[in-house]
């Protein structure tokens, strides 16, 4: 029997869709700032495998000579990013949603199963639940990355006034590298996230907009369509 099952509460959907453009603009303005001292590369000694970023990249998307504008956007939007993140964390704790989001003792094994399945190396599909082990780990990790971005960001924004934080993170130069690496992390998260949402299909994507998912629930009793509430104790 098919049911509309409530999946994502309205608050979580808002936090998600507010965060998406804000994080994009943070990364964009961050690139304007990074351009002014684009010192990072992957390589060793005189060998450079990849330079962050090639001149053509800056020119292609007009990222150059916008340091002041980048800082203005970054230091305004940081408040939106911070407050939205804070509300999200507060909401997940007060509503009990954290139970689906935090990894538990099964999550690591599940995450391996999910990964093997998604790569086509394992036939059996993982147990259907609101968030599988891989998702729990990924969504908790990206939240911790958000905290990391705020802390490393604060350390490079006010390295003297928050000198204790800056030295805790290894100094001004190190904190800037950490802030940059976390940003690369978001980009990688985004790529995998969008690919997985694409794979999971329309029903799953719609749930992040409309809140519900259609589920075909085997029944022994009442026939006919019903509206159902997700039962947390069964699906936790």
């Amino acid at each position, binding site marked *: 029997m*098919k*049911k*509309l099952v409530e999946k994502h509460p309205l608050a979580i959907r808002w936090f998600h*869709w507010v965060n998406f*453009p804000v994080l994009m603009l943070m990364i964009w303005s961050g690139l304007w*700032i*990074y351009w*002014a*001292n684009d*010192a990072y590369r992957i390589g060793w000694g005189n060998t450079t495998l990849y330079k962050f970023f090639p001149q053509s990249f800056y020119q292609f998307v007009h990222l150059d000579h916008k*340091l*002041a*504008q980048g*800082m*203005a*956007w970054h*230091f*305004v939007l940081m*408040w939106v990013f911070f407050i939205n993140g804070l509300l999200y964390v507060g909401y997940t704790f007060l509503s009990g949603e954290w139970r689906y989001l935090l990894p538990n003792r099964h999550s690591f094994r599940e995450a391996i199963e999910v990964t093997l399945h998604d*790569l*086509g190396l394992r036939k059996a*599909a993982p147990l*259907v639940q609101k968030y599988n082990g891989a998702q729990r780990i990924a969504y908790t990790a990206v939240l911790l990355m958000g905290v990391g971005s705020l802390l490393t960001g604060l350390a*490079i*924004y*006010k*390295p*003297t*006034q928050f*000198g204790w934080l800056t*030295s805790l993170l290894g100094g*001004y*130069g190190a904190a*800037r590298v950490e802030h940059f690496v976390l940003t690369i992390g978001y980009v990688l998260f985004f790529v995998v996230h969008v690919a997985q949402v694409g*794979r*999971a*299909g*329309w*029903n*799953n994507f*719609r749930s992040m*907009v*409309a*809140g*519900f998912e*259609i*589920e*075909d629930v085997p029944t022994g009793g009442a026939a006919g*369509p*019903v*509206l159902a509430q997700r039962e947390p104790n069964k699906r936790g």
Partner: protein
Amino acid sequence: MDQKPIPPHVSPDGEDLRLPPGSALDREATRRTRRSFIGLGLAGLGGVLGWRYLLNRPQIEGVPAPFRQVLNANGRLTQAYLRETRLAPEFAKSQGVAKVRTNGSAGLTSALDPAAWRMVVQPYGGGKAQEFTLADIQALPRVEMTTELKCIEGWSIVVNWAGARFSDFLAKYPLASRSGQPVKDIANPPADLAPYVGITTPDEKYYVGLDMPTVLHPQTLLCYEINGQPLSLAHGAPLRLVTPLKYGIKHLKRIGTIAFADTKPADYWAEQGYDWYASH
């Protein structure tokens, strides 16, 4: 690994999720889906229009007004957190770099006659501008410190500086208060002290504004030496400002004129969209 696209009505496990057409459930799903996507679309449109509206407000110092207001609030917040007693971390002299990077030459392009150079100070209480030679500044207690200079571009270097505390200058020369009292104790300055100080190069092509707590900070120096050597021309000979609670853009080279003010003095980089406070 077969990657056939999943049709919208099929779950990843191959379940057919089509609802009986025209059923109450189907109508409910359609209604909620339509409503939610229209809501998201409108929210997105509102976000784009709102963001564009904010970006197109009249500019204040190179930044749209609402952004400038938030940046100023950020500045006030950090000013409130800042204490005169909070010091920038100091390093061992040996950690200072031997070759100190120079960045920018605005205000340094005109010719300089070191013998004729004077630092001109306009007293807050009015009256005739006073002139000071380098020897006058060097007669004040010499303070040496090794701090990290942070450029707003995102790089930093540890530099060994020496000079006189700005506050020692104002202790000896009572120019910053209306009633002509000296700053004997930086924690307890005269009540009628000027709230702001503006400094320009002799050719007035580079200029910075500072608030009085920054000026009185014990690490704010009228600096005449780097690594124990007199300043080079590129580093701001004969006298420059060093204030390690601020980005390098506030470390004006080749001091020309100092004036006290009731409102935020003009600032070269703030006019081009950077934070006026530039504290870090």
